[in-house]
């Protein structure tokens, strides 16, 4: 396992210059790379190293750093290794190359990300609405989107719930647990 991971890291780092690698426990290896190199590294992983399976494409909203992080998770059936390829795109102008010529199923994730985070994928196929129907607001998964205010404005709320306690308050009371900073915003 460790040898395979080492070999993979070595192969990638010799092949791509501006890449940093990070080892994790178990069968996971992470790479961080610029967004221009993404198709190249994915092609390389698939064609040269046998990482045939695209498990997932995820997106993380780093609001404070004004960046989106896109994570491609690929898997090799022979090596039994998961490789995470991280890249960052500018939050103000999120444009990314689409990779559905490498894996057809990438299209689904990309459409979802387009809808939920507003990331534009160049040459994305079938760009009509995907999960959200008739959506008019901003991309709802962005962290600066205030879902409670939106819901309050758009959907009529039955009176009588104002004094009802948030379940998180109950948890805090019962366990003395501290709320994380980002969650405090939603505290009633």
């Amino acid at each position, binding site marked *: 396992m460790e040898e395979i991971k080492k070999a993979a890291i070595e192969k990638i780092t010799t092949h791509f210059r501006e890449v940093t690698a990070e080892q994790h426990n178990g069968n996971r290896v992470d790479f961080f790379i610029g967004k221009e190199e993404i198709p190249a590294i994915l092609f390389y992983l698939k064609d040269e190293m046998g990482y045939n399976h695209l498990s997932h494409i995820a997106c993380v909203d780093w609001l404070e750093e004004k960046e989106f992080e896109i994570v491609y998770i690929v898997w090799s059936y022979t090596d039994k290794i998961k490789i995470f390829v991280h890249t960052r795109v500018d939050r103000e102008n999120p444009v990314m190359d689409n990779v559905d010529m490498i894996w057809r199923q990438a299209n689904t994730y990309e459409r979802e990300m387009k809808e939920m985070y507003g990331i534009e994928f160049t040459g994305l196929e079938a760009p009509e609405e995907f999960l959200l129907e008739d959506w008019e607001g901003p991309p709802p998964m962005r962290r600066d989107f205030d*879902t409670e205010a939106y819901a309050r404005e758009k*959907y009529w709320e039955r009176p009588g719930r104002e004094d009802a306690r948030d379940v998180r308050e109950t948890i805090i009371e019962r366990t003395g647990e501290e709320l994380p900073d980002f969650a405090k915003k*939603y505290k009633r």
Partner: protein
Amino acid sequence: MINDKNSQKIVDIIQNFARQHSIWVLAYGTGCGAIEIPPTMTSRYDAERLGVRGAATPRQADVLLITGYLTTKTLKRVIRVYEQMQDPKYVIGFGSCTINGGMYWDSYNTIKALDRYMPVDVYINGCMPRPESVLSGFAKLQELIQAGKADGAKKYKENLEWYRTNQKKVIPNWHMPEYNW
């Protein structure tokens, strides 16, 4: 003969009895509530002894059972299904999500009160309601039918404008056949 007042009364009694004891349910399985329907229908709780039976399509159904939260996308379909059902028809809201949004109270695409958009005859609260409560909901509906008070469809017809305004507020792109009963 039918116009005669007394015979009309008898006919009404018979019809109400039939409607009361033959409830064909279209379970619109939204959200997590759909999982409560199989135990309600099968051996343990056996809703069929009350005359409750599943219907496959809205054209044959009497009761629309909405089992959980409704996103706006689903709401559009549910309204459509409701309008395809034949009179007399009833709606049962199932679970707290249909009453006040439940745990989805701050979701960006989930409605919080079903009766703003559709006439609900009976609400069953709980998250999730157990099959016992579902059965009691059906029993309540039967009571209402017997008393002639389950008139949600009539309300919907009379206040169609109000319902439409609410519906169109959350469903901007409204392309549906006209409902003009």
